[in-house]
């Protein structure tokens, strides 16, 4: 292959115009499984969001790699449809301007000839479109195809970086089904790619409000001094969904809420809330601190799991005025299924900062609202002067991740009048109001970061494996437990049994 001009070199005398604004370097993006929903609903609309904002390099092309016998025109038509339906405003125009940069490559994932011809196609694209030999591979296939694709990329040398050209791979969750399969997947990735070339996507980390956790903590002087076991009574992290499993019953039976949500999204949010300040905001600076949080959480002994966790399934109920099925009545769900649709876990981060302060993680389907939030509940003042010494409502700092993204602080204020009466009031910051305008999808940020080679918002191998270690210990305990999952009526905030996790007068929030 002829050596293309190296864009990373400092020979571009105008290069700061590209890098100063976080414009990605020229590259070709190869999407494996490009005929699937993810490409149409998320990836290409997000790429066009980047194009609209001027963040895509002009030397850019997309190759869709899949088994179906599609032409370039069919592929482009499908993508245009996706951008029209799921893209931000004006992104269709961006797509129309770039449509010729999208081509389709038909091949079986396991066919070596398909990868050789892919290589030739990419070299041609380099010559025509100035993509400079840089490659970004995206595994948008079912996990069962990962192994074959990784093997072929390594065998054909497409995964090799040389002469300043990058080759990176983005892997979609789930990263394994348990610790053992996660380790096996990571080992396989490593055969072709160095860790710095690997970008494991958890789209939660691409959300502005999740990133704002770091900004809130480390860009302000007032919060961090209180952010420890001396002042914080406990932390509740909730990811609630109002929908049921719908047509995903078969998949969900294998995963349950603990694998589907807690192992990845909730653990990621937990690490951002609990981590120490990193020395720098570099990818490894941040991820080193996140991993330390996970390492400070002990695996559960099987005998402790029933005490420290609650799992449950939703039963038939009413939601939004309509009757809805119970979990075991859903399509693809076994009649005697023990898969949990709700889980609550009490975790102890055993380090200097958090010793004795529990973190409650909870996630469920068919809860009353779709909401994601982190509630930092503070301890009562040491001496209660008001209301006859009766405890007041505790102060809560609430980080709302979705919807109504923002931050709120609950505190007591004197009710006007001759009596000294205290009432809760709330100070509210709403993202949508303070920073209006259109918000980019999480995938936009993550795709851009992958093109820039910035792994800060991606899960590193050790993070994934530590999270699985904790979750595996819970799943093992449940498997050995004599108890079936609890039940909760669809449309309620979960089983009554979840209350026993919260000792000492604490209560679950009803966000």
């Amino acid at each position: 292959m002829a050596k293309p001009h190296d864009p990373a070199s400092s020979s571009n005398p105008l290069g700061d115009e590209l890098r100063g604004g976080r414009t990605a370097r020229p590259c070709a993006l190869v999407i494996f499984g490009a005929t699937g929903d993810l490409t149409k609903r998320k990836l290409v609309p997000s790429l066009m969001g980047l194009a609209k904002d001027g963040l895509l390099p002009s030397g850019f092309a997309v190759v869709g790699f899949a088994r179906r016998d599609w032409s370039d025109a069919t592929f482009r038509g499908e993508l245009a449809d996706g951008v029209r339906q799921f893209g931000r405003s004006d992104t269709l125009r961006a797509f129309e301007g770039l449509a010729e940069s999208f081509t389709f490559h038909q091949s079986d994932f396991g066919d070596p000839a398909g990868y050789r011809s892919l290589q030739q196609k990419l070299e041609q694209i380099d010559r025509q479109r100035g993509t400079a030999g840089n490659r970004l591979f995206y595994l948008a296939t079912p996990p069962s195809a990962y192994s074959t694709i990784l093997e072929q990329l390594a065998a054909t040398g497409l995964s090799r970086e040389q002469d300043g050209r990058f080759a990176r791979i983005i892997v979609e969750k789930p990263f394994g089904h348990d610790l053992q399969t996660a380790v096996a997947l990571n080992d396989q990735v490593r055969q072709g790619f160095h860790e710095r070339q690997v970008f494991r996507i958890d789209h939660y980390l691409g959300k502005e409000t999740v990133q704002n956790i770091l900004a809130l903590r480390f860009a302000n002087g007032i919060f961090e001094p209180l952010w420890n076991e001396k002042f914080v009574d406990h932390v509740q992290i909730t990811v609630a969904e109002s929908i049921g499993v719908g047509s995903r019953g078969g998949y969900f039976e294998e995963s349950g809420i603990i694998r589907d949500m807690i192992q990845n999204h909730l653990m990621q949010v937990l690490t951002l809330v609990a981590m120490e300040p990193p020395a720098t905001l570099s990818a490894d600076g941040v991820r080193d601190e996140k991993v330390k949080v996970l390492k400070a959480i002990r695996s559960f002994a099987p005998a402790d799991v029933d005490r420290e966790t609650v799992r449950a399934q939703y039963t038939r109920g009413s939601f939004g005025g309509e009757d809805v099925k119970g979990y075991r009545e859903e399509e693809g769900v076994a009649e005697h299924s023990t898969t949990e649709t709700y889980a609550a876990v009490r975790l102890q981060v055993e380090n200097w900062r958090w010793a004795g302060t529990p973190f409650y993680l909870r996630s469920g389907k068919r809860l009353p609202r779709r909401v994601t939030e982190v509630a930092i509940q503070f301890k009562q003042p040491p001496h209660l002067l008001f209301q006859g010494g009766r405890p007041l409502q505790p102060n809560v700092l609430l980080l709302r991740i979705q919807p109504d993204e923002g931050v709120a602080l609950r505190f007591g204020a004197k009710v006007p009048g001759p009596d000294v009466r205290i009432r809760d009031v709330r100070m509210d910051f709403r993202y949508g109001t303070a920073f209006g305008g259109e918000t980019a999808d999480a995938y936009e940020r993550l795709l851009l970061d992958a093109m820039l080679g910035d792994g800060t918002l991606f899960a590193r191998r050790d993070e994934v494996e530590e999270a699985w270690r904790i979750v595996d210990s819970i799943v093992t305990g449940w498997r050995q437990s004599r108890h079936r999952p609890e039940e909760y009526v669809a449309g309620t905030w979960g089983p009554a049994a979840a209350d026993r996790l919260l000792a000492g007068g604490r209560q679950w929030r009803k966000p």
Partner: protein
Amino acid sequence: MSGAASLCRTPPRPVPLPQVGDALRAIWRSCSSGAGEADVARSLAINFVGIAEVADEAELRAAVERLQHRTPCRAFLLLLDDREAQVRAEVAATTRLQGETHDIVLEEIAVRMPAAAFPRLPGVVRPLLVNDLPSHLFWNAPWPQRESFLDDLAALCDHTVVDSRRLHAPHTELPRLAARRARGARITDLGWLRLRPWRRALAEAFERLPHSAGSSTTTVIHHGARAEAAALLLGDWLADRLGAAVTYVAGPEDDGPCPRSVQLRAGRDEVDLQVAGPNLVAHVTTAAHCFLPYRVPVSRGTDGDLLAAAIDLG
């Protein structure tokens, strides 16, 4: 960020200058009383002081309209109009309604006055700036004959935005702007931000062609009647970065505030950048390659979007 929001604007209400503060408080009260059980909040993020000639009022208002979508503000619209015999003010507000919440996202104080009243302006604005919020001055008027006018308003603010396309004599006035910056003033020029697609497209060209320092580079910039300042800014940049010898070719047409084309030659490599509809189209040719042309949108939004971006930068 979530849910549909709608905007509600109060009709402008003339008020004597000393009563502007009271008039704004009356607007808050009326929003609250109309809101029933809804929460009412003022969500102002900045003070915005915009100055323009009355002929450009609609343009300034359109820019503020866009700005408040992104950055809720208390906005002073200072309109120079020599037909006015005295200083007149009116106030209005815009509320964003979203579900049960009402957010006041724009408090607008429009002040009309003859140019002779200019020295009184800082005294009008100063007591009405919201405490603890960053203040941005948008000087959207020609360069002042007395620079102290600009100085006095800029002294109230943390950051000044100018638009060099308003300059009547860019050859002499752009260096004055540069001198202010050199003295430490925080100034952002919308004219420079407007050139971002041009700079970007040229930078992309150099991703494709190898550039050796010291190679002789010539550039020809074609521009219309309103784009002299932009052409000079772009030419100066190319001269500074590439050591390019720049030739300007001015046409009489009024075809917008940006150049019409740039032809750049460095040894045997050529870059040709032309406006074609909504895009800049770049043709890059080297001795070895003729790349497919690439496009960069010539604009990424309205002047209001550009103003919001300038304020983010400031």
